[in-house]
């Protein structure tokens, strides 16, 4: 059985550089907070400078401009950054959104087709915008058919709750706020589009090339943390709920909406495939979407985007 | 017109305590008179004039114009300050007519009266000028025309020529006498310039300093026309000396 203190038997030399990792409010990323508070990074002999961002956008920018070595972000944000000229590598899948990204509508809207001509708020260019457009596409609609209101996610939830828009695309924990509006309900969510919204640890290529051991230690820490959470549910939940600024009970609700990827799922996701569950395929789909919706001008080069070697190394060291 | 000041007291509350600016002032001015009050700096001259104008309230005592107590400023008592105080955004004609406008006179009627007073002060050619284009002496003439245009019962003047150079000052003094004769306005003027007071007025009140009270009242009786030459008249010199001597007793502390 694994040791109670999560350490990795992989021989990792003590690192001298501290790794600057960013994360923000998303259920799939709160484990990083556990890793820090339970001293799992230290146990894996990696010094981590874990940076919390109130604004998710800033964390993306921070990685792009080199103020972070790695950041937890969604696939389409990584693609946007790469398209803008940032050199990033995806080394670990944190999770897939399986319902925590939601399109929430007011009373009286019952089908996607009803959104036509309605005011819909979402943060432009984020996964929820993406999700909204996927939904519209499915019903044969496009953005021009609705009255799109670009708003920062928190503000979008607030605006919906206040009755200023008819629908909103937000992610947890802001979904909770939006659903406070009486009569409101989830029209569709990321559950309906498996694999469409996946979240990763992306690191800059420069850092990866200079410090592969640290990246390995990060990956190792992540999986060790997942083990820790499993074994110390109450303690871990408390840490994560506190970071999210919600109660433990509320936090538990997010559980179903986010599917944290195991080692095996990680390995599978990095393989090529013909549906959205395969990262390379999803990346191609999303970059096409980004180009066609005008958010990026040119599809990024995807050939070097994924690097499964660290996940593979962990799997090799931990045959379950 | 009959201005009467009875047992007037004025105190100011300052940080150092209560300052008695005026103490038991009694004076009167009759229709058509030209009266000067002279006193050293700080003797309360401005305070006195402000009380008469109704711009400030006395601590005790009363001021009456035609037996009506003064409770506030009004157009019956026109005022000319040392600092010109023209309305900088109005041209000369509008400055002169502003008092009439305030009291609702139609523009056309105003026009006629403004022109008359511009003529009185000899500034008809400057009707369209802005104050900033005028010299100090011209500004003060506009201020006088403006006060006169409202046809006050009495014109109050607070060192009107104090900021002018000696040449302009003397010219304006003569000019003021002319205007006074021409319009018959009653004038109460305060000044620290004894020569000015003797030259202009028919009667002079000399004030003491701190607290200001009336030290002496003199009637000025000079022969003939008051023009430049009169200043060399021995009687003029005597009046001047008399008042200067009175003031000298007051002014001494300045060098202490």
């Amino acid at each position, binding site marked *: 059985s694994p040791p109670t203190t999560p350490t990795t038997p992989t021989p990792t030399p003590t690192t001298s550089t501290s790794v*600057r990792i*960013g994360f923000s*409010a998303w259920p799939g990323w709160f484990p990083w907070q556990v890793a820090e508070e339970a001293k799992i990074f230290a146990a894996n002999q990696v010094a981590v400078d874990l*940076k*919390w*961002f*109130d*604004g998710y956008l*800033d*964390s993306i*920018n*921070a990685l792009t*401009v*080199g*103020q*972070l070595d790695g950041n937890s972000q969604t696939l389409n944000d990584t693609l946007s950054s790469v398209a803008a000229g940032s050199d990033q590598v995806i080394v670990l899948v944190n999770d897939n959104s399986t319902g925590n990204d939601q399109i929430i509508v007011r009373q009286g809207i019952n089908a996607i087709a009803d959104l036509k001509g309605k005011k819909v708020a979402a943060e432009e260019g984020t996964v929820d915008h993406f999700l909204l457009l996927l939904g519209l596409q499915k019903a044969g609609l496009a953005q021009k058919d609705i009255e799109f209101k670009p708003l920062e*996610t*928190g*503000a979008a*939830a*607030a605006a919906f*709750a*206040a009755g200023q828009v008819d629908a909103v695309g937000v992610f947890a*924990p*802001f979904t909770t*706020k939006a659903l*406070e509006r009486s009569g409101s309900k989830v029209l569709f969510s990321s559950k309906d589009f498996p694999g469409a919204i996946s979240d990763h640890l992306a690191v800059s290529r420069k850092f990866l090339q200079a410090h592969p051991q640290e990246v390995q230690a990060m990956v190792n820490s992540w999986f060790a943390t997942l083990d820790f959470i499993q074994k110390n549910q109450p303690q871990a939940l408390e840490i994560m709920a506190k970071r999210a*600024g919600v109660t433990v009970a509320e936090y538990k609700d997010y559980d179903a909406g986010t599917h944290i990827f195991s080692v095996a799922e990680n390995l599978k996701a990095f393989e090529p495939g013909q549906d959205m569950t395969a990262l390379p395929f999803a990346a191609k789909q999303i970059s096409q979407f980004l180009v066609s919706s005008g958010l990026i001008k040119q599809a990024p080069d995807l050939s070097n985007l994924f690097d499964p070697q660290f996940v593979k190394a962990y799997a090799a060291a931990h045959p379950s | 017109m009959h201005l009467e000041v009875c047992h007037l007291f004025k105190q100011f509350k300052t940080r150092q305590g209560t300052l008695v600016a005026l103490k038991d002032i009694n004076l009167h001015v009759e229709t058509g008179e030209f009266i000067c009050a002279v006193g050293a700096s700080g003797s309360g001259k401005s305070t006195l004039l402000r009380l008469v104008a*109704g711009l400030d*309230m006395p601590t005790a005592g009363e001021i009456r*114009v*035609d037996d*009506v107590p*003064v*409770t*506030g*400023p*009004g*157009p*019956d008592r026109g005022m000319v300050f040392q600092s010109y105080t023209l309305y900088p955004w109005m041209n000369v004609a509008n400055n002169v007519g502003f008092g*009439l406008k305030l*009291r609702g*006179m139609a523009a056309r*009627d105003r026009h*006629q*009266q403004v022109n*008359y007073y511009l003529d009185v002060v000899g500034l008809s050619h400057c009707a369209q000028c802005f104050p900033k284009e005028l010299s100090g002496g011209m500004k003060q003439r506009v201020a006088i025309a403006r006060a006169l245009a*409202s*046809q*006050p*019962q009495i014109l109050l003047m607070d060192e009107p020529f104090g900021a002018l150079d000696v040449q302009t000052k003397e010219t304006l003094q003569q000019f003021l006498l002319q205007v006074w*004769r*021409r*319009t*018959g306005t009653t004038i109460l003027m305060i000044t620290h310039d004894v020569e000015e007071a003797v030259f202009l007025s028919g009667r002079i009140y000399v004030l003491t300093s701190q607290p200001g009270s009336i030290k002496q009242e003199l009637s000025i009786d000079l022969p003939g026309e008051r023009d430049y030459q009169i200043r060399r008249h021995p009687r003029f010199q005597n009046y001047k000396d008399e008042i200067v001597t009175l003031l000298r007793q007051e002014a001494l502390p300045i060098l202490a």
Partner: protein
Amino acid sequence: MDSPLSNFQVSAPDPRKMLSPTIFWRIADPIPRALAWILMTLSIVLPFSLWWLIASSGVVAPLFLPSPGQVGGALQRLWSNGSLLKDSTASLMRVLCGFSLAALISIPLGILMGTFTSVRSLAEPLIGIVRYMPAPAFIPLLILYFGLGETPKILLISIGTLFFNTLMVMDAVKFVPKELIETTYTLGGRRRQVLLQVITPYVLPNIIDACRVNMAASWNLVIVSELVAATEGLGRRISVAQRFLRTDEIFAGLITIGLIGLMLDLLFRLLSRVACRWAVE
């Protein structure tokens, strides 16, 4: 002498038509101290009562307008778990550092620009363009060059105050009497001495006043600056509260900022009074 005055239509003004005395509507005159204090109290009490009334009337949902009680509760909660103090300290330090940096640049620059037409010509066109640029737009560049620590936050606040303060200090220098400068020359003063020993002390009261005014502008940036990877601060507290629509915490944060601001304002006034006793008010 020529035209008798009775020709004119204006009847002699009625002496009884004097301006009536007033207490409340005195123009450019002080009002009694007691009245002033009453009014100043009303200034705070009135809006507060209005708030309390509307909130307790139930016309507006508490989500939109929390009651004074709820906000008080939020304040107490934040105080007792220590976060209010921590947030206030963090924001105050940031604003003070950012503002001090801005002052450190803008005061000498403003004095130089006010003193030398040449320096002014050299700096004014650029400042004239740059000061219109919104400080928040500089965030990505600041992150790029200065990372995620305190530096970019402080710099953002500095940028937001720098230009305003420079121009206000520059304007103050214009009021140094030319003859005071010239007197200094005739006493044997060199230009450098005039700059440091005459112009600078002369504008000190105005500088303190400009700083007092611009301190408020600094606080306006505290929210935006604390979006940059801050873990504590009043601005961050407010933006988190915004996301979760905790209106009571938004109000609590705003009130705290308002009160800190008021205190800073009073401190500056005190400083001005102590350091510039010599100044004619």
